């Protein structure tokens, strides 16, 4: 008679004890003045540049210069 009661109480105690084990924090604790989000990678970290920063910078510089028709060797065109 005592054994089933003890088993039931034990199962209940185990259930209560483990109830919060799967709980995840759902509230972000903000620290004032600092970025709280996910980290970002530099633009040259992935393909096609694979961390070759100089190569990426060369590509950007070439495109920047492409915005000036005076630097493309076309001479003086309209303003």
């Amino acid at each position, binding site marked *: 008679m005592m054994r089933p009661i003890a088993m039931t109480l034990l199962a209940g105690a185990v259930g209560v004890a483990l109830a919060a084990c799967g709980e995840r924090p759902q509230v972000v604790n903000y620290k004032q*003045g600092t970025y709280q989000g996910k980290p970002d990678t530099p633009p040259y970290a992935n393909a096609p540049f694979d961390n070759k920063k100089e190569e990426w910078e060369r590509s950007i510089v070439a495109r920047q210069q492409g915005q000036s*028709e005076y630097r493309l060797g076309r001479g003086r065109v309209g303003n």
Partner: protein
Amino acid sequence: MARMKFLCDAERCIECNGCVTACKQEHEIPWGVNRRRVVTVNDGVPGERSISVACMHCSDAPCAAVCPVDCFYRTAEGVVLHDKDLCIGCGYCFYACPFGAPQFPQAGAFGVRGKMDKCTFCAGGPEKDMSELEFKKYGRNRLAEGKLPACAEMCSTKALLGGDGDVLADIYRERVTIRGRGGEVWGWATAYGQPAGAQPGAQPPAGAPGQPAPSTGQKS
């Protein structure tokens, strides 16, 4: 690499809205959200001027200063981005921004304000570069492809420039020097007003930055 900036040459902008269209197409921006827009001053009056406006990626961004959840960050290239997973869509950044850059898409059937969306300088956001998730949240990451923002690269008159601020300044200075006008648009007079009776485009007052100091009559 210094800081990524936009510069719009008001002498060249023809209000074609090509930059707006390019931005919307590139990032598949939803209806009602405009990361970029063209503003015309004195519309219809001879001498009207237009400039293309979006997030200016401020060095000391007021949006980041007022954000209650601190979801803004600045990359090493000087691009101001934010984490949409943290954004609560409160709208403080919209009030703080002098350019009206933050946009809030309508989310759901009842017009609930969604998470903030703004120009990313085509640099994506805090997700894996060029991933599907990054595209859905922030749009295409052209910077990671070694390209400049779509709006600037497709501008037909090259009025809108994007890239390293120092390089843009050099390009703009060269243009102004060659055409002999237009520098005053961004100069001293625009920022600090003109003396009474001065003609538009007149030289800035002596002593202004880049100008000779006024003579005091003393010999050094």
